[in-house]
């Protein structure tokens, strides 16, 4: 197998390739403002580094966030389209899970908060329990001001950029800052045996969530900023 993992939910535009045994290539660029520029060249470079061609890929996994919308969509549409073009199954994973998983593979055990930059003075956050079997999500991903998170969560060691952005609210920095494609790929490979969906998606039809994966819809967690137009009146001209 050759699993391609893509995530654009954090500052990292990151790609990982996993052959079922180990991560064989990873390409990461840190640039919060140019996800679309770096992602396709990153996939291309990772394939080159692995000595593989696009046609060798057997599975695609994308981080579905939560993350800043514009960048997040770049990764999801890239994964969906790549898979569709080659008729491959494509699955989604919550991006915060990949951060918790990387902390776990680095040896972290116990409770962990993951808090990433949601902009607008907020973080995307979820709590995890890291045991011998892996990182289990203990709270649903949410968006909030760091200082408004429950005190027992804020007291935990915290991965992601939350602690560097809001050191007073999140004083215990620990673990990775951004999602890594390699960690996402590794997490996906570990969850694949639990994926009992009979007919994998081929870019058109997403893999059924609930088999260790999270579906392919982006986790926006916020509504678009827009108010319905005021009723037609003389003063509506700008």
């Amino acid at each position, binding site marked *: 197998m050759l699993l391609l993992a893509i995530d654009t939910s954090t500052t990292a535009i990151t790609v990982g390739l996993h052959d079922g045994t180990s991560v064989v290539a990873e390409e990461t660029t840190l640039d919060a403002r140019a996800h*679309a520029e*770096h992602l396709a*060249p990153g996939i291309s470079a990772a394939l080159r580094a692995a000595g593989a061609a696009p046609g060798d890929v057997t599975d695609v996994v994308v981080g579905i966030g939560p993350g800043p919308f514009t960048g997040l969509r770049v990764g999801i*549409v*890239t994964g969906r389209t790549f898979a*569709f*073009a080659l008729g491959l199954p494509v699955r989604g994973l919550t991006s915060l899970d990949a951060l918790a998983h990387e902390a776990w593979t680095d040896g972290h055990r116990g409770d962990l908060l993951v808090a990433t930059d949601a902009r607008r003075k907020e973080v995307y956050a979820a709590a995890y329990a890291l045991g011998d079997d892996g990182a289990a999500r203990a709270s649903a991903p949410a968006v909030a001001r760091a200082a408004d998170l429950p005190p027992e969560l804020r007291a935990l060691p915290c991965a992601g950029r939350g602690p560097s952005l809001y050191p007073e609210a999140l004083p215990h920095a620990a673990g990775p800052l951004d999602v890594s494609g390699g960690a996402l790929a590794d997490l996906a490979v570990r969850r694949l045996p639990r994926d009992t969906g009979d007919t994998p998606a081929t870019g058109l039809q997403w893999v059924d969530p609930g088999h260790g994966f999270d579906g392919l819809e982006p986790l926006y967690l916020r509504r678009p900023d*827009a108010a319905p137009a005021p009723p*037609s009146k003389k003063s509506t001209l700008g």
Partner: protein
Amino acid sequence: MSDEPLVLGIETSCDETGVGIVRGQTLLVDTVASSVDEHARFGGVVPEVASRAHLEAMIPTIERACRDAGVQLRDLDAISVTSGPGLAGALLVGVASAKALALALGKPLYGVNHLASHVAVDIVEHGPLPEPTMAMLVSGGHSSLLLVPDVTNDVRSLGSTMDDAAGEAFDKVARVLGLPFPGGPHVDRAARDGNRIAIDFPRGLTTGRDMERHRFDFSFSGLKTAVARWVETRHRAGESVPVADVAASFQEAVVDVLTRKALLACKEHDVDHLLIGGGVAANSRLRALAEERCAKAGVTLRVPRPGLCTDNGAMVAALGAQMVSKGREPSDLGLPTDSSMPVTLVQA
């Protein structure tokens, strides 16, 4: 098999997710998913709403285009995509998808200009473009007068709007008149029963000094305000507003200026073909007046059918096919989007 290039084009610069497939100068399919209904209650296109809709519609639209055209992705010769100008977040969805297609399939990628695509689409409708062609693009986002010696690499801007785009003026006036969004078709319909000389609304940038300094530029902001003031005055006097007459008179002011300047540009640049594109080109009065004035001036008028005037993927595929045919170099996979891409830059 034909030697002509088979190109799939993707357009996501505003609220339409468009995928078109063209072989050379022949349109095979034009598939559009629009999020316009989702924007209606906001009175205009909301960028984040548009971007979300593009993500949802992207794969189903590509899939449907291929199925309807009977085309396998692996048979394509190239992918083309609008890389600007347009809404930044919306453009990104199409560009990222196009790159993934190009990378997965090992096909060349062409990032092209939305406005040049509006010109190129008429190749699949009415055949090769005379060189040069005069092109007037009028939509909700743009109002430009272009001299086009070669749509693949030489597009010159003669003028553009100084403020509102023509289609934007239609939307805003529609709102003043209590007509729904998008305003263009509703104003057009209301105007059919109206008197277009009932109210003498101003013609922007058409007098003395303006014609020296802004010969081929447009301005619709003053007109929009004039309509609003006129309507307000009626309201204040407790009188009813003759919607049809206001719509017809406003529309006449817009299309009068557009056609007058377009034909002046043809005359001064010695060009005998005028192409009108963009969503406002669907306006029935613009078509009628342009036909009348072109006939009088001995200029051949080309207007694509309405479905190809509004944003669509076929136009991007049409320009991509021209790029391939003329041997232009493909774009890099690092291709950026450019929300304010200048009209003179055909390819990114």
